[in-house]
């Protein structure tokens, strides 16, 4: 149980960040900053650019240039400061653009591997040799093994319209296609599970929180994960200021969104959200706070009345909660307290508030679902608004993440990929080792019943998933090092990332202000939508080329240049993409105005901020895309999958969302050896692994492991001590942050630090602090997704 500090500050002041402001008088200016300030005054115009890393938002940047160098970065100044039409202000990462651009880690020349794969030894080669080698290997792989053996790696690091992964997809499709993936490392479990409940993933706009009386979020750390000026974090603050709903955060950590002013923090053990939901459901049913009319009219499987004919007796949700289902356990607050670590009286109080306060807006971040039982958790959380009838009304949300607006931007066309085989995105290491054995009912293969091929070549451009963001870096390292399995790896990037070490050919891309491009708003931007011009402000410093140009050259080598370019240059493709977008979004200015002007924001693109309001108004006329057209609390489709798929021991796929304890969760026998739960979280100083190598950001947000004061004391660990976090998969070394902000028996590591294995006393130790040195390659049951928050570890002083 967490006790608030007894102080005069009150609850909201439990944690505060204090900014020490200093007067910006000239007495503080050093000669360099004076010169920069003077130069910024002298040079007009600046160049527009945009930050296109995968944070789910995109922010304009203004680059001030002198002597061929970007000397300062400012952000959007084209709008006012309102809650709707506002400046899309770049965060600290966008502000640190110059440190990326002028990083000593930039890839300068095309290179080929000269040592063992993974060793990181390379030699400079000519572009001619690089292009020919890649083209030859593409041809060889396709001819010898087939297109299913050619894999495009999951890469999300460069999200602009033309000079991005789009160019690579276009090229690979001209080669006859490649093995596809489905899902993502962000939302594998919730993306797979939620459509079984709702037929999709509906989300109300963040602004609807202003119309709620109660805002409850499971792990929605919005001010960090959506922290840019154009993102949902700002929208959340606006909504809270406008409507003053009571706000409650359920999270293992007192995260920075709570610190910025939420009313209550309920600490919960990772992976146990569904148990909390079931106890709340128990209280709602017991106290008659469920909306029975809503459940009867709009839902399938709440009680026996609406259970499908195929379902077994007692398999409805209500029976499960009251202990009349298969397991015979009543899901009481006392039952859940032992699992979640939340005192029963806190659960009772939370249930009472949710049961008696309307409108109630329930949401979840993407952390709770990134677990070995994440599919059940995602659907379970949605049960709360469903039981309360808080769906499709103002001030409510169906229980998924808050929604987004998005302009239908037209990106560089990629052609068609005729390859049918599609693997779960997390299963590519399996597809290298045993692709031939992968099937639909064992490994979630789609498009084919059986893969019949191993991955023999990987193309990776603008991403660091391959070794850093995938699970179990030490095991993945071994798989990648075996050149008899995956025979050829090409990596294109702008930075010498850990993934680059595994390249056979390394291609240097340009970065941001070194070429022309366009960015559209990201996929998690909340209410703002925009098109952002990215102007070439400076020349590439070394022998780098744009991805588009690299792909054009490879296409040329393969005799497909005309098909690749269709006679257009990169800039002409930009104009084409923009004009095609404008056909769908006529509010946008014409090309010349846009390209010469600056960011084009479109307001009010999403017409209806309340998700499922049409369904609520008339469920017959506006059915959901589920087989029944209703909200499927009981899913027959899931029941069929549960009956036909071959699952590993411990895995559960359930027709109704249930809490179950999977491997390496709280209560597992393995806790005798590794007593602490360990999960990763997104922090301010990186987006996934991008920005890791920038000293300004590491200075502000140094990598640490969060450990509770009690756990630290028991291990003789003081704040700042170097510690080792370890399990059977690996050892990570980081300084300890000893804090009350994380619950006992749980430790957490900001995800995305660069994997840096070294030998220490005969053991491999990751001194880079990458959490994936500790995570497992075992996929989750339904999505076959990354369970990267499911880990048991121990911590000791280094």
């Amino acid at each position: 149980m967490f006790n608030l500090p007894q102080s005069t500050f009150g609850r909201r002041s439990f944690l505060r960040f204090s900014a020490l402001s200093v007067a910006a008088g000239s007495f503080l200016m050093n000669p360099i900053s004076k010169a920069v300030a003077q130069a910024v005054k002298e040079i007009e115009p600046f160049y527009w650019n945009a930050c296109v890393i995968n944070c789910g938002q995109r922010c304009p940047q203004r680059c001030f240039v002198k002597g061929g160098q970007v000397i300062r970065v400012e952000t959007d100044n084209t709008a006012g400061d309102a809650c709707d039409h506002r400046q899309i202000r770049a965060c600290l990462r966008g502000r640190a653009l110059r440190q990326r651009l002028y990083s000593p880690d930039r890839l300068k020349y095309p290179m080929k591997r000269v040592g063992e794969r993974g060793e990181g030894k390379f030699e400079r080669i000519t572009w001619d040799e690089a292009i020919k080698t890649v083209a030859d290997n593409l041809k060889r792989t396709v001819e010898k093994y087939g297109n299913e053996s050619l894999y495009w790696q999951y890469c999300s690091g460069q999200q602009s319209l033309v000079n991005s992964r789009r160019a690579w997809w276009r090229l690979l499709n001209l080669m006859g296609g490649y093995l596809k993936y489905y899902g993502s490392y962000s939302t594998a479990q919730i993306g797979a599970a939620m459509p079984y409940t709702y037929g999709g993933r509906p989300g109300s706009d963040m602004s609807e929180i202003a119309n709620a009386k109660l805002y409850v979020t499971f792990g929605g750390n919005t001010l960090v994960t959506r922290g840019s000026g154009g993102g949902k974090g700002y929208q959340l603050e606006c909504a809270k200021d406008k409507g003053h709903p009571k706000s409650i955060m359920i999270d293992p950590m007192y995260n920075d969104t709570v610190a910025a002013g939420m009313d209550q923090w309920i600490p919960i053990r990772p992976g146990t959200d569904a148990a909390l939901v079931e106890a709340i459901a128990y209280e709602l049913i017991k106290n008659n706070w469920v909306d029975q009319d809503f459940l009867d009219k709009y839902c399938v499987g709440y009680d026996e009345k609406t259970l499908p004919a195929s379902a077994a007796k007692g398999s409805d949700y209500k029976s499960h909660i009251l202990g009349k289902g298969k397991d015979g356990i009543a899901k009481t607050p006392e039952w859940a307290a032992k699992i979640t670590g939340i005192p029963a009286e806190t659960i009772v109080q939370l249930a009472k508030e949710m049961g008696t306060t309307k409108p109630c807006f329930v949401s979840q971040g993407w952390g709770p679902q990134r677990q070995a039982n994440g599919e059940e958790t995602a659907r379970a959380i949605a049960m709360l608004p469903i039981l309360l009838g808080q769906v499709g009304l103002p001030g409510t949300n169906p229980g998924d993440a808050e929604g987004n607006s998005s302009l239908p931007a037209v990106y560089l066309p990629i052609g068609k990929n005729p390859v049918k085989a599609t693997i779960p995105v997390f299963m590519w290491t399996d597809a290298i080792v045993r692709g031939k054995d992968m099937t639909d009912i064992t490994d979630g293969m789609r498009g084919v019943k059986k893969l019949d091929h191993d991955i023999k070549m990987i193309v990776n451009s603008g991403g660091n998933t391959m070794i850093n963001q995938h699970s179990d870096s030490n095991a993945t390292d071994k798989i990648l090092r075996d050149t008899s399995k995956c025979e050829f790896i090409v990596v294109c990037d702008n930075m010498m990332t850990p993934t680059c070490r595994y390249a056979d050919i390394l291609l240097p891309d340009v970065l941001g202000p070194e070429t022309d491009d366009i960015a559209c708003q990201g996929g998690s931007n909340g209410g703002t939508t925009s098109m952002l011009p990215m102007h070439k402000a400076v020349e590439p410093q070394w022998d780098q080329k744009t991805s588009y140009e690299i792909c054009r050259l490879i296409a040329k080598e393969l005799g497909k240049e005309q098909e690749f370019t269709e006679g257009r240059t990169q800039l002409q493709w930009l104009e084409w993409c923009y004009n095609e977008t404008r056909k769908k979004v006529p509010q946008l200015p014409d090309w010349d105005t846009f390209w010469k002007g600056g960011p084009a924001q479109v307001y009010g693109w999403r017409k209806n901020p309340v998700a499922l309001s049409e369904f609520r108004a008339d469920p017959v006329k506006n059915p959901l895309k589920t087989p029944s057209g209703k909200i499927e609390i009981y899913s027959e489709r899931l029941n069929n999958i549960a009956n036909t798929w071959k699952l590993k021991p411990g895995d559960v796929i359930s027709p109704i969302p249930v809490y179950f304890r999977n491997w390496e969760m709280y209560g597992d026998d393995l806790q005798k050896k590794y007593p602490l739960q360990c999960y990763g979280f997104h922090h301010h100083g990186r987006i996934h692994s991008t920005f890791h190598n920038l000293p300004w950001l590491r200075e502000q947000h140094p990598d640490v492991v969060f450990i509770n004061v009690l756990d630290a004391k028991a291990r003789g660990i003081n704040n700042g001590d170097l510690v080792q976090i370890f399990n059977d998969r690996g050892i990570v070394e980081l300084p300890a942050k000893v804090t009350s902000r994380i619950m006992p028996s749980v430790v957490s590591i900001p995800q995305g630090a660069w994997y840096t294995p070294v030998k220490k006393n005969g053991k491999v130790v990751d001194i880079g602090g990458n959490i994936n040195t500790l995570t497992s390659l075992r996929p989750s049951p339904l999505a076959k997704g990354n369970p990267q928050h499911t880990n048991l570890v121990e911590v000791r002083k280094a």
Partner: protein
Amino acid sequence: MTQLGFFVDVSKCSGCKTCAVACKDAHNLPVGMNFRKVHEYAGGNWKQAANGS
């Protein structure tokens, strides 16, 4: 008008430290030199109940 200082509503601060980085960019400051500093202050304590909560 001469700017004499910054108004900061710390009740809304999420600790992102964009202000610190923007300042470093504007003044070309190396690591170790920060004109703008953001500090974290945290408190509270924990007790273990018999049922593990």
